[in-house]
């Protein structure tokens, strides 16, 4: 390890220790476990800065924070899977004795022999860890894939296809009472007739042109080609809107972390 890296690590340890001491002092009299609170806030700040340090360049602090995050996430979801699925869902329906042991509410009268099927399938799934019997886990996997596909098929067909097609059939003339009435009540309000009609036309034409762009059985020339071109524009605008929203989302997360650093760690009154 380089000498400069060692010096930097030493500095980080010193800053960490100082931060812990200062935070513990600031929590004294406010929090019951002020030493622990001081440590947790300092650790959170250290990990935040470690992750952000990647923007400068890859470094050991970033790697440490990244590995810690992955490890803790894996452990968290494994323990959650056990406590919420096996202890939370299965045991209260199987055994009163086990329910008392795990201190969960037993559900009397809900016992069913079929509850052993997921237990067996779960054990089969763990056979993946064995080199010789790993193939048995495919049965459980096939069951999961099959039931999920079956469960979702009808729902998606109804909500994401039929209902979406139905939502595209919007009135192109909203509250139409003649051209005179239309111009005399012309307004740019979002709930006004003009904007609502415009929105419905955009939905109708946007969907049609978008579909035409993905229709490859006919050459994209003439009117058809022009509609396809509009379809590309609609897609580009959609991607642009998605990008804009993504930027907003990422900036929000950055604001969240910087606010934490300024207010909770540095103690600024903002």
């Amino acid at each position, binding site marked *: 390890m380089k000498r400069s890296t060692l010096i930097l690590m030493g500095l980080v340890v010193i800053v960490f220790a100082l931060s812990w001491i200062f935070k513990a002092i600031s929590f004294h009299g406010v929090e019951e476990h002020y030493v622990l609170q001081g440590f947790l806030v300092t650790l959170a700040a250290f990990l935040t800065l470690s992750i952000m340090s990647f923007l400068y360049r890859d470094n050991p602090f970033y790697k440490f924070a990244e590995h810690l995050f992955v490890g803790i996430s894996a452990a968290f979801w494994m323990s959650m899977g056990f406590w919420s699925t096996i202890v939370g869902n299965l045991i209260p329906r199987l055994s009163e004795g086990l329910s008392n042991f795990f201190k969960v509410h037993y559900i009397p009268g809900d016992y069913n022999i079929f509850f052993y099927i997921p237990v067996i399938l779960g054990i089969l799934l763990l056979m993946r860890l064995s080199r010789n019997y790993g193939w048995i886990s495919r049965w459980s996997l096939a069951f999961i894939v099959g039931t999920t596909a079956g*469960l979702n098929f009808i729902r998606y067909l109804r909500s*994401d296809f039929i209902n979406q097609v139905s939502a595209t059939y919007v009135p192109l003339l909203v509250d139409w009472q003649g051209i005179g009435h239309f111009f005399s009540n012309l307004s740019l309000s*979002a709930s006004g007739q003009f904007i609502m009609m415009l929105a419905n036309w955009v939905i109708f034409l946007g969907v049609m042109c978008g579909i035409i762009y993905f229709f490859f059985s006919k050459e994209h020339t003439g009117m058809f080609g022009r509609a396809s071109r509009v379809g590309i524009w609609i897609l580009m605008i959609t991607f642009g809107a998605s990008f804009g*929203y993504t930027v907003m989302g990422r900036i*929000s997360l950055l604001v969240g972390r910087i606010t934490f650093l300024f207010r909770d760690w540095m103690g600024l009154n903002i």
Partner: protein
Amino acid sequence: MNAFTPPLALALVDIGRVISLVLIAGGLLWLLIRAIKLKEVERRVIFLFIFISVAAPILFPTVFKEKATPIVKAVFDKIESLPPGSKVLLSYDFDPAMAPEVQPMADAFSRHCLVKGHKIVYMCLFATGQGQFTRTMENVIRPEFPEKIDGVDYVNIGYKAGNEGVLNVIISDFKKMFPTDVNGVPYDSVEVFKGIRSCKDLDLIISIGGGRPGIKEWVLFVGDPGDVPIATGVAAVVAPQLYPYYPKQLLGLLGGIKGAAEYESELVIHYPRFKDSPTPALLMMGPQTLAHIVIMAFIIIGNVLFIQGRRKEGKQ
């Protein structure tokens, strides 16, 4: 910043705002000149600018006025129009990573429902949602509504594993999936649950999140088959995917921090008692606005650099 902030502090904040704006504008101008001269801009400079443009409005708060758009107003009006005592389900389908964006929505929904006297059922499809509800409990319910009683005015039934499987059960039978609340109180003893057998007996369901399982599963497994009104507040990243559901399958949508800010603003306008309540989403719009301006400036600078480069290639 409030009415009791000393004038000197206000003046210092104004000075800070001006200095940071001058710094950012000057820096961008310098980068534009460099771009015209065909000099590359290192990516770390861009990160630095984004940091300054986000940090400056946090240190020197800048609050913009927000006006609720129809898609946000629809959610507000729905909660507003329900008679007191209506049953509203708030599902915390998010984790700490999404919290800066969606926790303000969750808190605002809770405030609105509680002030209207609705009965709230809290649950989560994310295991980590349980911790996020604790924040609402500590920051909103206990300090602002100390008179509200657990089990009578609201109930927390917590997390159940199973993703859409959970929804597939509670659309027909709540008790089967949630025999007790998180405190172990049996379903039949919880007053909020009186008259609720399944999700179909709820007056409104609001899912707050942005991942899977989330609002899409709520629409697919509860909203559409059960014909239950559903609204949502989601992280900005997934909002564009959910717009097609509005207004037929979703009665309204809060997209990202902008949606949350609009909702908070609407809440303060209708209920002046929330004037001094925390409005984190409104405060976040300052950094958002400045950061977006800087990003747009960088897009322009990038294009200038690209056009200049092409011109130079053409001359050669």
